[in-house]
C-alpha cells in the first residue's frame, strides 16, 4: 500500500500533491501545531511539579491532530482519543478549557469529574470519552448513522491508536460502518506503540489500513508526520462521507515522541536510536521548513509566534489555577437526570457528617 505524503522529512515537497489551502489556513495550522507542542511540554512539566495529577502528551503527533481535524466543520462530530487535544483546539475549544479539564476545576464543563486528558466538549460536538480505547468507535457509527437518516449534512470522525485496533469493539464497529455505509472517518494514529507494545506485535497484518478491506470500505495509508498529507487524506475521506460514499479508515503513521503517559518510562522498551530517527521526522520541523520555503514564515515571525504561544499558555494556566475545584455535592448530580432518593440520602449524609 502506498503511503500518502506531500512534504518530505527534510521539508521538500511535491507541488502536485499540495492540497488546496489558503496561506492563512497554512499559517493557522502551523500556529495550532505549535500551541499543542508547547501545551504538551508545559502540561507535562506541571504534572511533574504536582500541579496536575496526570497527563498524557501527544508530542510528535501534532500533524495528525491538526491535519485530521482541519477538514471538519463546526457541526461535524468528533469522538477523539486522549492524544487529540489538538483536534479539540481545531474544532474551536479554547486553550483554557483544555487546561480546566486537566485541573478538574469548577470551570470544566465536565464538572471536573474525569481523569485528565479525557476530552469532552458539547459546544463543539466533541463527545466525552472513557478510558476504554475502542468503545467509542461503535458510538461514532451510531452518531454517523443518525445524521445520515436525519439527512443532516454531518460527518463524524473518530480518532484512536494502533492498540485499539485489536479490541473486538474496533472490528464490530468497522463491520457495522461497512454494512450501514455511514458518513464516518475512522482515524487511526499509529504512533508505533500501545504503551510498551510495538505495533508489529499488536497485529500480524501488513499495516492497519489494510484492515478496512475486510469490512468493505477503503483504507488509506498516510505519513502522519506530514500535516498536509494528513489534511489531504482526511479531507478526501470527509468529502466522500458527506456525499454518501460511506466510511474510510485512515492510518496516519506517526511516532509517540514521549512516554505513554506521565506514569510511563519509554526508555524501558524503546531504543535511543529509534527515538533519534523519528525526531528527524518531526512534523513541526518539517512544516516549518515548508512554510519558510513558501515564504509564509520567517525566523523572526516564528520566534515571535513561539513567544506569543508561550505567553498565552502561561496566562491561561495562571487563570485556570485560580479556579477552585467543584463543590462536593457535584459528586452526586448527573448520575441521573433527576437525583433519586437513594443518592440524595447519601449526599445529605456527606454534607452532615463530612468525608
Amino acid at each position, binding site marked *: 500500500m502506498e503511503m500518502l505524503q506531500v512534504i518530505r522529512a527534510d521539508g521538500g515537497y511535491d507541488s502536485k500533491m499540495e492540497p488546496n489551502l489558503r496561506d492563512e489556513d497554512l499559517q493557522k495550522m502551523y500556529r495550532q501545531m505549535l500551541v499543542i507542542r508547547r501545551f504538551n511540554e508545559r502540561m507535562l512539566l506541571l504534572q511533574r511539579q504536582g500541579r496536575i495529577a496526570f497527563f498524557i502528551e501527544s508530542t510528535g503527533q501534532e500533524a495528525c491532530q491538526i491535519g485530521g481535524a482541519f477538514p471538519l466543520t463546526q457541526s461535524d462530530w468528533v469522538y477523539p482519543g486522549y492524544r487529540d487535544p489538538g483536534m479539540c483546539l481545531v474544532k474551536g475549544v479554547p486553550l483554557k478549557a483544555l487546561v480546566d479539564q486537566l485541573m478538574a476545576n469548577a470551570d470544566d464543563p465536565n464538572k471536573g469529574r474525569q481523569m485528565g486528558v479525557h476530552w469532552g466538549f*458539547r459546544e463543539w460536538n466533541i463527545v466525552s470519552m472513557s478510558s*476504554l480505547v475502542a468503545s467509542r468507535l*461503535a458510538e461514532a457509527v*451510531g452518531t454517523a448513522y443518525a445524521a445520515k437518516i436525519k439527512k443532516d449534512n454531518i460527518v463524524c470522525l473518530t480518532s484512536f491508536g494502533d492498540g485499539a485496533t485489536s479490541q473486538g469493539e474496533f472490528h464490530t464497529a468497522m463491520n457495522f460502518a461497512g454494512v450501514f455505509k455511514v458518513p464516518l472517518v475512522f482515524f487511526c494514529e499509529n504512533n508505533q506503540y500501545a504503551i510498551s507494545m510495538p505495533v508489529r506485535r499488536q497485529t500480524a497484518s501488513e499495516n492497519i489500513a489494510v484492515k478496512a478491506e475486510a469490512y468493505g470500505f477503503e483504507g488509506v495509508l498516510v505519513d502522519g508526520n506530514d500535516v498536509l498529507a494528513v489534511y489531504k487524506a482526511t479531507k478526501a475521506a470527509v468529502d466522500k462521507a458527506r456525499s454518501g460514499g460511506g466510511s474510510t479508515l485512515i492510518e496516519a503513521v506517526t511516532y509517540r515522541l514521549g512516554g505513554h503517559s506521565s506514569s510511563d518510562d519509554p526508555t524501558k522498551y524503546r531504543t535511543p536510536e529509534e527515538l533519534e530517527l523519528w525526531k528527524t521526522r518531526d512534523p513541526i520541523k518539517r512544516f516549518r521548513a515548508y512554510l519558510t520555503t513558501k515564504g509564509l514564515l520567517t525566523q523572526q515571525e516564528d520566534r515571535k509566534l513561539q513567544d506569543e504561544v508561550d505567553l498565552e499558555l502561561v496566562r491561561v494556566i495562571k487563570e485556570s489555577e485560580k479556579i477552585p475545584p467543584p463543590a462536593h455535592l457535584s459528586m452526586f*448530580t448527573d448520575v441521573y437526570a433527576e437525583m433519586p432518593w437513594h443518592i440524595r440520602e447519601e449526599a445529605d449524609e456527606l454534607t452532615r457528617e463530612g468525608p
Partner: protein
Amino acid sequence: MAVLNIVQTVNQTLRDEMRRNGNMVILGEDVGRNGGVFRATEGLFDEFGGERVVDTPLAEDAIVGMAIGMALYGLQPVAEIQFMDFIYPAFNEIVSELAKLRYRSGGHYPAHVVIRTPYGGGVKGGHYHSQSTEAYFIHTPGLVVLAPSTPADTKGLLLAAMRSPDPVIFLEPKRIYRTLREEVPAEDYLVPIGKARVVQEGRDVTLVSWGAMVQTCTEAAALAAKEKLSVELIDMRSLLPFDIETVLQSVRKTGRLVIAHEATKIAGFGAEISAQVSERAIDSLRAPIVRVTGYDTPFPYGLENMYIPSPERILRAVRKASSY
C-alpha cells in the same frame, strides 16, 4: 381497551411510540424483517422501514454502542438484546459508556437508550437462554432497571422508559410472554419509574418480588390464605431506582418479610432489599428476613423446574417467617 399478553403489549407499545416519536429507532438482531425471534417487533419493519427498524449484524457490543451514538445525536434508540444471556459482549458499552456518559460529561451527553431484553428461565433454555442477572445492572449507578410483571405494567413502564432521559435496561419476563393476558388500556399512560405496586394487601407476611416471579408469588399467597396466612404481595417493578418505602410500610405492619427472585441468591437484589429493611425497619422485624431464590449454580436444563422457586417453596418460606 384490548386483552393482550405481554409480547403483544410490547409490540403495540413500540408501534404506538414509533408513530408518536419520529426520532425513535429500533435496532437489534432479527428485529426487522423477521419481526424479532419472540415476535416483539412484528410488523414494525413494514410500517416504518429499514432505516428506523434496523437489522444489525451479530455484535451486541456494537448494537449498544451504535444506540449510544444515536442517542447522543438526538434519536431515541430502543435496542433489543435477543436474550439477557447475550448481553455480556455489550457489558462494557453498558457499564463504561451508557451508565456514565451523562455523569462524565457534566450532564452534557445524556445517553437515553432503552435496551429491551427477554430474561429468566422456564423455557427449557439451559444456561444461556435463562439467566436473570439484573444484579449486575442494579449495581451500576446511572442505569435504570425495570422489570414489569403484567401486560398493563409492561405498557406503562416501556413508555416511561422510552421517554426517560436516562438509560434503561428493560427486562421482559419471557416465560410469561404469552401466558398472562389482561385488559391493556388503549390510551397513553405511564407507570412511574421508581414506584412499587402492592398487588394484594395482607396482615401477616410481606412478600416482595418482581417480573415473572410475581405470578408465582400470587399463587403462593393464595395457598397461604388457605392456611389463614394473610400475605401482602409487593411487585417492585423498578429495580433501580427502587421504592423501599412501600416495602418498609408493609414490614412495619407485618413484621415479617419474604423476598422471592429466580436470580441466584448470593448478591442478588434480594440481598439489597434485605439490607435496606434491616437498616431502616429493624425494630419492626418479628422474624429473620427469608429469601427464596434460584440456587447458586448455573441455570440447569433438565432440572429447570426444581431451580425456579415454586409456589410451594415460597409458601414454605412464608410459613417459616410467620411461625418464628
